[in-house]
């Protein structure tokens, strides 16, 4: 995934030296280094519990809905807006799914598709006011947050609704089957992990070859080699760990696909390029013939759909819909995006950064819980990490 991090931001050094390049691109590398350091710290502090197969699997399941929403939120924030309603929408869609599946006995596939549609419609309704009537997104989605929190309560009549049929639960708690029938190891999961790692490595090498051919190489070889070797090793190791438990969770596959697709959209398509331009300078984008209103509208519709997907995953994981589901999730999602290097002003940020930001928060939650640190201190520490990450970003930007 890391080759999709946009390496263009650094000012070109005529003689690429490792340390200098690293310093100039601290925004991109810093976040990855921070995740590795935090993981190493908790692995040590918890006496190796953090990376135990069962815990690692849990970590991914626990954070899946945050990651799914962070992908959409990144685009919203890059376009210069914000969406405060995602936690409430997540709760509302979970409740809707519970009502449809548990109370009305609807087929869960039909219900899931309807729920995604409802999520997209909610996002579109908010996006409509933001894009076409220029109502500030902060206010529209703050209203949405209240409205859907209320509607969740109404829909569930204040009660928890569950349980879901087992087939629905598989969304969040299922694992990919092992078609190779390994004994202690889910061989298919391991093979899939190694294949993805290999593919990413191949793509990185190919991109570098092309750069070399054109003489536009900026990243020094040593950094390139270390970074990609690390990513390769980490992916293989993680898939080995998960394979030795129960294999790759279904949600993990969904997440990986979303990250890949949205990274591609953000980096390589005209739609992505236009969203970044809108966030960077909306007036200039508009005068360049970009239909800014329509793109902002679609960005919010997309966000609503992803919040709905996260709502389904969350409901399936808890196996019940509760009126409190999704409470303050929007803050975790927004924090993840900003830790990942996005700018409040818009126009800056990467999908991979947002995902890493979500995992930094997730690893800290998980590690601190294992260490038995109280929820009170956990909040304080997470808040300070968010502040530190953004200060680091701003400091780097000012120095450049």
């Amino acid at each position: 995934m890391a080759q999709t991090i946009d390496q263009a931001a650094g000012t070109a050094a005529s003689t690429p030296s490792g340390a200098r390049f690293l310093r100039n691109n601290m925004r991109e590398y810093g976040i990855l280094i921070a995740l590795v350091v935090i993981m190493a710290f908790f692995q040590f502090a918890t006496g190796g519990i953090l990376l135990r197969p069962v815990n690692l699997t849990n970590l991914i399941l626990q954070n899946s809905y945050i990651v799914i929403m962070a992908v959409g939120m990144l685009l919203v924030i890059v376009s210069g807006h914000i969406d405060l309603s995602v936690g409430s929408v997540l709760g509302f869609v979970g409740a809707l799914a519970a009502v449809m599946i548990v109370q009305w006995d609807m087929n869960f596939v039909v219900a899931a598709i309807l729920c995604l549609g409802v999520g997209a419609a909610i996002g579109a309704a908010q996006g409509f006011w933001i894009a076409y009537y220029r109502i500030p997104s902060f206010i529209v989605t703050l209203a949405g947050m209240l409205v859907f929190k209320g509607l969740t309560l109404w829909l569930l009549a204040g009660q928890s609704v569950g349980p879901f049929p087992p087939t629905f639960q598989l969304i969040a708690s299922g694992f990919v089957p092992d078609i190779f029938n390994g004994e202690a190891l889910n061989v298919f999961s391991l093979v899939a992990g190694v294949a993805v790692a290999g593919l990413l490595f191949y793509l990185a090498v190919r991109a570098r070859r092309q750069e070399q051919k054109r003489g536009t190489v900026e990243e020094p070889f040593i950094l390139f080699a270390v970074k990609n070797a690390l990513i390769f090793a980490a992916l293989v190791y993680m898939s080995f760990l998960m394979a030795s438990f129960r294999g790759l969770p279904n949600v993990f596959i969904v997440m990986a696909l979303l990250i890949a697709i949205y990274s591609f959209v953000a980096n390589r398509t005209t739609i992505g390029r236009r969203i970044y331009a809108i966030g960077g300078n909306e007036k200039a984008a508009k005068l360049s013939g970009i239909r800014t209103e329509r793109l902002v509208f679609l960005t919010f519709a997309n966000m609503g759909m992803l919040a709905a997907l996260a709502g389904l995953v969350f409901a399936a994981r808890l196996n019940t819909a509760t009126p409190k589901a999704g409470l303050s999730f929007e803050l975790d999602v927004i924090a993840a995006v900003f830790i990942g290097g996005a700018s409040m002003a818009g126009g800056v940020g990467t999908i991979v950064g947002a995902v890493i930001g979500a995992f930094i928060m997730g690893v800290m939650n998980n590690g601190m819980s294992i260490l038995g640190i109280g929820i009170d201190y956990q909040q304080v520490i997470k808040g300070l990490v968010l502040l530190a990450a953004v200060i680091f970003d701003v400091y780097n930007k000012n120095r450049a």
Partner: protein
Amino acid sequence: METILEMRAITKEFPGVKALDNVSFKVRRGEIHALVGENGAGKSTLMKVLSGVYPHGEYDGDIVYDGEVKTFSGIRDSERDGIIIIHQELALVPLLSIAENIFLGNERAQNGVIDWRETNRRAEELLARVGLSEKPGTKIAHLGLGKQQLVEIAKALSKEVRLLILDEPTSSLNEQDSDALLALLMELRERGISSILISHKLNEVSKVADAITILRDGATVRTLDCRAAPAREDDVIRDMVGRALSDRYPPRQPKIGGPVLEVRNWSVTHPIDGQRRVVDDVSFTLNKGEVLGIAGLMGAGRTELAMSLFGRSYGQWQAGEAFVHGQKTDLSSVPKAIAAGLAYATEDRKTFGLVLDQTIRRNVPLANLPAISNQGVIDKHRESEVAEDYRRRINIRSSSIEQATVNLSGGNQQKVVLSKWLFADPDILILDEPTRGIDVGAKFEIYTIIRDLAAAGKSLIVISSEMPELLGITDRLYVMNRGRFVGELPSADATQEKIMSMIVKSGG
């Protein structure tokens, strides 16, 4: 005459660049001293050293002010000594009143409670001194740029200014307002207030300056004393660019064909005030290979006309038809206008032209992304090739295409905006103040681009407030005043006097 300021052997380095190299600069008490040079010559850096933006210790050399060596550690220090700088981008709060702005940060107050009577009384005095007849309670947002400049000067006077630094004060003013401002500077000179005037407009400089210091590439070229003998503009330009500019406009052989764009009875009202016609019943024709100029004072409606033609980007369209290549054409949105072959390069590069934080590579293809992509997927190599091609062809001075446009000088930013529109391959280019705030050398390059485009069969409309420029590069001129076209004449027959008289006779 005694010296008020002497900057001795100032050297200021940024990582990898020597912005100022052993610069010496001397201002005498009670003179207007002009500081000229191309963009990037070091004028602004020198003034930042003087005003303490770069504090003592970050530069080498001495600042001697009033006979004492000064070590300013911030802008507050230099203001305390009466050195006040007024930046090109004004630092006024639009929704506060004139009086509140004048005393912002320096309130007439006792124990934190503002004395409004004293504030308004002092503000009235100061407004009278700068010759601005507005009430102290008027909000800044209701004033034009010229009057806002005067408020800035009133603010400086309130701080007991002794050395006033003006950075491009007239770049966005019309001629009337510019003249008023320059007259005020001369009046301040009578009262012993010295000024440093940074300007690209050499005709103004030679009108008011007592001395001219020319900077080039971070070093002093020379200081001319204008009291002994008036400075010759050509000499100054030669020193600025380091070469003789035999002609300020490139020679050209116009080859003009048939009509490309015809606009009939175009009317647009103000975006908020639907009664006010900002463009009023305008009709004109643009021919193939022609460079058409639109002259007029600031606020005549030229930018508004251009923007409303370009996808109704300004105001509320009321009436009018446009014909492109003889076909009636719908220009009601920017994508439609681009599809019809129009392009509009804005007068305000930073607000409307560039995505500043993004690189040259990402800005150049922005108006024509489909040309570098397949099925919506961008071909990054094609993108780099395109950007590199324009960087070389129209000489965008930068470290590489990966440089963020925010770090480019004004002239090079303008070239990026032009590249963006050239890559969109329009037939009709509207250039709004294409050389505003850029230096003589870069201007010549822009004029050359315009000439080459016309030679390649493109049609251009140039809007400019600099009349010599319009006369120098266009084939035909329309004169606009108060939303209407009040005259048309071939540029060869036009003079500044003729244009002004058309404006005045139409009721300016």
